[in-house]
Every structure is written in C-alpha cells, then in structure tokens.
C-alpha cells in the first residue's frame, strides 16, 4: 500500500533484479553525460559559447559601419553585404527585420555576430534548422562554415510581437 504507512522496517536491501536495473541505469546516465562532453571537445559542430556584452545602440552602430564598408547591393530595401572571407559579419535583429542580408562563400569560415536592437528574437536558419537565442545586450558569436550554396532563410522563432511571423531574413551562399 503506497497510501498507508510502510511496515516499520522498510530500508531493506535491493533485490537482484533491482540492483541490475539500477546499475544499467547508472551506466546509461554516465554514457549520456560523457557523450555531451566528448561532442564538445571533438565534434565539428557544437553550441557556440563566445559572448560579449554590448549595448543595443553600440551594436546597431557596429552593424551600420559594417554594412557601409562591405555593401554590394540591395534587395527589397535591405542591403546585401559581402563580409571579408574568414572575417567578422554582423547580423542585427529588430522588430521585425533581419539586417542586413549576408552573402558568404562556401567552405569559408566566418565569425557571425548576433544581437538585437530591441526585444529578444530567435535566429533560426532554414532549412538546415539551426537555432540560437538572440538577446539584446549580448553579442553572441558563432563560427559558421557554409557547406552548400544557395539562398537560406532566417526565421525569427522567438515571439516578438504581432508582426513576429513576418520577420524572415535571408542568407546567401555563393561558390
């Protein structure tokens, strides 16, 4: 009866099957734990961790300067920017826009900076389905090496007000 008090002496040793199950579970838990660490140390893809504090105003200014310097065109009013190969690229989220459109080269590694001008946003690169949180006041840096050419979407996947679902940006990868 789990609804009534147990017999006076309930701290009995485990049975054989119980001991086996507990040990199998412990080993399983340890393997899971080790995999996460090993993945971080040896795998080619892992969660970015590089972060800097930055005010939204300062980050907006940095992005503007970056756009000014490397701009190569414009699409629907949003500048298209080709950052230096292997260099830093800045992406600014605001309600309800991703700014600018980045044009990257396949096989080259970039340092992509992410931050927001106003609210929290969600960086969701589609279709590869790669998602990061964008928080104002924090510059989140990820290393990205595009493997395929083409046009990709950046969908906002953190609710940011009534126009949230219209916040779709673009990322271009060329040969």
């Amino acid at each position: 009866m789990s609804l009534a008090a147990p017999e006076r002496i309930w701290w009995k040793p485990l049975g054989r099957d119980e001991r086996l199950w507990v040990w199998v579970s412990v080993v399983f838990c340890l393997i899971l734990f080790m995999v996460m660490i090993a993945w971080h140390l040896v795998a080619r893809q892992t969660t970015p961790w590089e972060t800097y504090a930055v005010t939204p105003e300062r980050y907006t200014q940095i992005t503007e300067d970056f756009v000014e310097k490397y701009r190569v065109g414009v699409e629907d009013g949003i500048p298209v920017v080709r950052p230096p190969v292997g260099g830093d690229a800045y992406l600014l989220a605001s309600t309800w826009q991703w700014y600018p459109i980045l044009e990257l080269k396949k096989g080259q590694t970039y340092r992509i900076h992410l931050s927001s001008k106003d609210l929290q946003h969600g960086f969701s690169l589609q279709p590869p389905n790669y998602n990061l949180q964008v928080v104002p006041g924090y510059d989140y840096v990820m290393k990205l090496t595009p493997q395929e050419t083409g046009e990709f979407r950046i969908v906002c996947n953190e609710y940011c007000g009534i126009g949230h679902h219209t916040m779709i940006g673009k990322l271009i990868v060329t040969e």
Partner: protein
Amino acid sequence: MTTQASQANFRTCPTTGLQVHRPAELLITVNAVAAVVFLTVGGILALLLALTRWELVHLLPADLFYRFLTAHGITMLIFWIVFFEVAGLYFGATVLLNARLVTPRLGWAAFALMMIGALLTEVMVFTGQADVMFTAYIPLKAHPLFYLGYILFAVGALVAVYLFFASVVVAKQERRHTGSLPLVTYGLVVAGIIATFTLICGAITFIPAFFWSLGILETYDPAAYRLLFWGFGHAAQQINLAAMVAIWYALATLTVGAKPINEKLSRLAFLLYILFINLGAIHHLMVDPGLSVGYKIVNTSYLMYLAVLGSMIHAYSIPAAVEVAQRAKGYTQGLFGWLRRAPWGDPGFAALVVSMVMFGFLGGVTGVIQGMMQLNMMIHNTLRVVGHFHATVVAGTTVAFMGLTYYLIPLIMRRGLISRRLASWQPYVYGSGLLLLIAGMMLSGDIGIPRRSWSIAGGGFSSLSDITLGMVGIGAIVAVVGGGMFVYIAVFSLLFGKDLRKQS
C-alpha cells in the same frame, strides 16, 4: 499545537475506513473545482490555437492567436496544474494521514490570493494588455497588474504549500498516524519542497518585473530574467513530475492493490528529484549567449543525469509493483498474463497506463534528448519543444490528475460517477488525440517549424508541414473531445451524481 482536533470535524470513509477532516475535504473540492474550470478554459483555447496552426484552416487572426496563446499557456501550465496540486497536497496531508488541516482559514486565504492573482492575470491577458506569452520575456512589456497577478498567485500557492507542511508535522505530533509517511505523501512532500523553491524563484522573477513595468526599475537584464524565469517556469513542471509520480503510486494501489516492491528504492528516487531535477531548468538556455559551456553541461545533465536515474527507478518499480500485485491475485499465466488480466476498463488504471507510457516514452525520453546541449541547436524554439511538454504536462501530468479525480469524486466529494463507461473510455480517447498532436508537433519541429508563430508562410519549410500541422489540428480535435469527456464527467458527477453520503 497541543490541542487535539475536534473529532466532530471528522467523518469515517466507508470504503477505506480513513478519517476524513471535513474542512480539508471542502478545501480539496474547491481547489479541484477551480482547477477544472481553468482546464476547461484552457482546453477551449487549445482547440482554437491548434486550428490556427493547422494552416489549411487558419482560424484566428494573428492578434487573437498570440493573445490566446498567452492565455492558454498561463491557464494550463500554472492555474490548472497548481490549483489541482494544492488539492492533491491537502489530500496527502489529511486523508492519507488520518489527520486534520491545521488552519483551514489559512487554506481559504491561500485560495483567495491564488484566485485573485489568477483572475487579475487572465483579465490583463484577455483585454490585450499583456500579449507577452507565458514567458513574458523582458524587454517585452505587459501591464503592471499582469505581473502583480503572477506575484499574488505565487504567494497564495506558497501559503498553501506551507499549510501542507504544517499539517504533515502536526499530524505526526498529534499521533494521527504512526511510523513513516505513506509513500504517496512522501512524494507529495518532495513536490512541496520543489514547489517552495519554484514559487520563491517566481517571486524573485516577477517582483522586479513588476517594478520595471511601472518604470521604477529602469533596466532589467533580459538574460538574467531568462535565468530566473526558468527557475520558476521549468521548476514548476518538476512539481508536476513529483506529484504525478506520487499519483502513479496512488493509482497503482487504488486500481490493483499494488504495494511498492522496495520502499527504500522508491524513496531514494524521489530524493534524487529534490537534489537534481531543478538543474534541468537550464534546458531553456542551452543556446543562450552569456553562459559558459561547463555551466551548461553540468546543469543540462542534471549533474550526470542523476535525476534521470530517479525516473528510471520509478519506471521500473511501478510496473513491477503492478505485476507483483497481479500475480498475487493468481494471474500468472505466461510472461504477460498479469498485464492481459489488468483492469483496463477501470478509468484510474487506464489513466495510469496512458500517463506512464506517454510520459515515459514521449515526454521523458524526448526531454533528455532535446536537453542535450548540442542537439538543442536543432530544436530550440521549434514545435518540437512544444511536442515535448505536451507529452509531459498534458499526456503525463494531466492524465494522471484526471485518473485520480475519478477516485476523488466518490471518496472525497461523495458522488457516484455519472457514467463509469464514459470514464473508462476517456483516458484512451484523450491519449490517442494527444498522441497524434504530439507526433505532429515533434515532426513539425524536426523540419524546423517555429513555435509561437501565427503563420509559417515564406519560411521556406518543407511541404511536409501540411501533413505534420494537419496532425496537430486533428489530434487537438480528438484530444479536446477527450478533455470534454473528463470535464463533463467531473462536473455532472459533482452536480447530479448519486449522493453517496446517504449510504454512510
């Protein structure tokens, strides 16, 4: 606390022989009824939302969708669950211990605070002054009364939890029961400890948010808010976990007379929850800036998955207890004869099985997978997360609570079930709808479809989304039918069920 409870305040349960404290009985009923009312509101919203996400139907306009999504999340995750948990805590501290609720007046004060808080928050949301989602991520700003509602609710719930602990202690002092606590009450004590942490965290989150929304506090760091909020938001779901597992043990006993095979092991598993489960709150911050890798790995793994170990133990010991009880009844044919001869038509047993299977295989396993730091990059803020917590909170906790309600109605509210036949079907109907809903959400998440989005047009998603979002819509319709069956049975039994008081 030396005064003995007046014996006149007790009645003897004719079924179990337990002493039931009348003022506690009334508070259990009132809290459970409030819970079911919120469940009904949340369920109606659920249907409207799912029929909007099913883009072929696309029922609501964008503004109402976001407003109702905010209301649905808060109503279900906080109000339905916590009101029911308070009822469960009072049940565990009084009925199971043969004891009284120490100060029923405080119980009513807690109820009033929780209700005022809940209504304040609901009014702010429905009048469009808090379209900020359940999470209300800073710097998204809501009306100050929205945060005040949350705070009042949390304080009320804290009072209720305190009353629960006080009653457990006084029951022992007044020698209303001897020996250790029953396992179910022990599990509820664990839930109460986790709840204390959760509600304090909630207060720490929302009190600054309240002042920030008033303009008194100028800045509130959004990342710090996320950390604090999830100490409340995720931990609140761990109260559910502990309460649900306690209820699983209760249902296993009520339905087949199962007895825990090893009390030591089951209690150890609960202890692991207290120590490690709340580290999982960091699952929400896996792809956040500002946190170190070591911090993320230690927390997301519940320190080497020691809380998962607790769940693995329960996943073994509850089915094993059912098997032992069934075999003792003579159902020993073959390997699974005990399972074949189980009371599948008993609504409590049906709820136990649906809850355990769906929580374990859909909710728990996916949670551990998604909570892995690197894999989290592929699911963060997609519908897969939503699929996960519908498997845990709805298919797991809610179904378990429904199963217990089928026993509370005759034992505590003293009414016969209006239709036992309908009740025995209910967990299966609800469960199958949820299965489709959850599978649809998870598959949608796998192809990258975001949560909390009115439309996915222009996102360049696979056309498979027509099918997966259709599953969400159809699954929700079936689940809402199942949920409606529960509400019908609960409400009509209470109002028109056979009056069992006349028998005793």
